[in-house]
């Protein structure tokens, strides 16, 4: 039997006019829901002089205020909740810009719609009931593992909940159980590919046929290499915890941008400086509105990802608008081994641990793995003249960073005033990775 083409064709191939109508109906309800249940939204809308009845359809979306990541921090932990906790069944979490992480809440309805989105991505990548899906994204607070895991269940695939790490076991399960679809970060996929090659596998003998790779930037050159090494077709997937997780948009076999699940999310492109909406086809910051998420519905959430939208018809038959790969950020967030890291988080740790915020971050890539080094100036009064004591300080700073960031950088303490300053301003980030085309 031939694999199905769509997971939910009634939405995925819905005529654009009908999608807009559906979006309008859902938006009107959503705005009323958040105005009545979330004091934050009510206050922001009142401030802007917008009432729920002013929103008559998605053409009125621009009237609503933006939500920024800092708003989530300011309203931590329950301030953005739009449903009673008793109706929530799960949290997921992502990094905040400083100490507090973002906590996203899900009702069962929210989980279902998120998993549907992931199921659509899997089917678009050619997965069906007969397939064996190896999910090698991290499981836990990170949305990667749970999202694709749920999507894979919905499609009816045999799901291997591998989580990340333990490469030897990953490869054993992949080859013994003949995994056909691999879901992980593109850098981990490349690492698995190199390991398989060393073990004597060729693209023909590797059982995989498709890969769904996301959570970090990758280039078309990365895609070409992954497809050649693993003997697969490599699909991009996009998402963020604030909006639900992976599957907000996904690639089809056309590989020409990611279809946004428009029955659940409305995308806008704005000028990041002025906040003004830009017409389709122009490059700007991506903003999402959740149309029917219940517990944690973001309205006009600024993703800080820079990209382009296209309504051009796609040969796959899906009518959902497509977004380009993010081409950069309108803030200073870094994505390191799939983890979002803000320089402000690093500064917060340094100040807390008694250091000055004189530091430099160096990112590179060795064997498809991100290296993450932080050089920190040692305050003169903290100097003690043994290598042992300096190594101990480096280790304890690394632990403090790991607690805050979720990944531990290699810390290098350096003498005061040795971190390069250009034109009096410190260069904070040196990124030697090639992340974008």
């Amino acid at each position, binding site marked *: 039997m031939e694999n199905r083409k769509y997971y939910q064709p009634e939405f995925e191939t819905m005529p654009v006019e009908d999608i807009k109508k559906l979006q309008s109906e859902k938006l009107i309800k959503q705005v009323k829901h958040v105005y009545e249940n979330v004091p934050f939204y009510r206050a922001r809308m009142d401030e802007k002089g917008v009432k729920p009845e002013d929103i008559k359809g998605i053409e009125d979306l621009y009237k609503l205020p933006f939500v920024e990541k800092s708003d989530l921090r300011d309203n931590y932990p329950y301030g953005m909740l739009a449903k009673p906790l008793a109706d929530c069944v799960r949290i997921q979490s992502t990094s905040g810009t400083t100490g507090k992480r973002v906590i996203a809440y899900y009702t069962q309805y929210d989980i279902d719609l998120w998993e549907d989105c992931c199921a659509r991505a899997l089917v678009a990548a050619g997965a069906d009931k007969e397939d064996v899906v190896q999910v090698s994204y991290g499981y836990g607070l990170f949305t990667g593992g749970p999202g694709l895991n749920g999507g894979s269940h919905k499609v009816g695939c045999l799901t291997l909940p591998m989580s990340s790490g333990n490469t030897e076991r990953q490869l054993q399960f992949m080859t013994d159980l003949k995994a056909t679809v691999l879901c992980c970060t593109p850098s981990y996929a490349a690492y698995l590919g190199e390991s398989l090659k060393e073990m004597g596998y060729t693209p023909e003998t590797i059982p995989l046929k498709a890969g769904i790779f996301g959570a970090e930037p990758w280039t078309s050159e990365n895609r070409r290499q992954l497809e050649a090494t693993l003997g697969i077709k490599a699909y991009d997937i996009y998402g963020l915890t604030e909006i639900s997780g992976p599957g907000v948009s996904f690639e089809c076999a056309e590989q020409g941008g990611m279809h946004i699940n428009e029955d659940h999310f409305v995308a806008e492109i704005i000028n990041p400086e002025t906040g003004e909406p830009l017409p389709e086809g122009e490059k700007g910051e991506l903003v999402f509105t959740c149309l029917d998420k219940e517990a944690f519905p973001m309205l006009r959430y600024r993703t800080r990802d820079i990209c382009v939208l296209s309504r051009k018809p796609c040969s796959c038959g899906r009518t959902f608008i497509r977004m380009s790969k993010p081409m950069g950020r309108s803030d200073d967030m870094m994505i390191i081994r799939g983890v979002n890291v803000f320089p402000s988080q690093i500064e917060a740790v340094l100040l807390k641990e008694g250091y000055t915020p004189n530091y430099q971050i160096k990112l590179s890539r060795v064997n498809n793995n991100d290296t993450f080094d932080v050089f920190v100036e*040692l305050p*003169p009064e903290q100097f003690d003249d*043994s290598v042992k004591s300096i190594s101990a300080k480096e280790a304890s700073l690394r632990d403090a960073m790991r607690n805050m960031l979720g990944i531990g950088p290699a810390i*290098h303490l350096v*003498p*005061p005033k040795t971190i390069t300053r250009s034109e009096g301003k410190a260069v904070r980030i040196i990124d030697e990775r090639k992340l974008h085309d």
Partner: protein
Amino acid sequence: MAIRQLSVFLENKKGSLSEITNLLAEAKVDLRSMCIAETSNYGIVRIIANDPAKALEILIASGFAAQIRPVTAFAVPDQPGGLAQVLEILEENGINIEYMYALVTTIADKAYAVMRTDDEEKTEAVLAKNNIELLDEKNV
């Protein structure tokens, strides 16, 4: 009894050591002994000088991370196994050595060393009790 040692935290790169020796030369500080511990990123230079307080002041004023700390200077018994004997005494008394290096002095015919241990006071007491000759700054 202990002598004062000056230490400086340095970048492991060309010219950083001479920057220090130049500063100290200008200030007419006389260096007696020096040892460098290095890693791939940084070095710690340890100096025995005639006027460590002045040297520290100059280095701090120039923005270096530097410190003065007491270290034990002692005469190594001039016979085979002389150093081994000292180390054995320390070990028996549960004293750990952080580092040790040779001390150059103007006293002829004798070998001297400097060390930092995890307990300077106890080190000196133990060595004195075992008739190991200790130096103070006047002898250096």
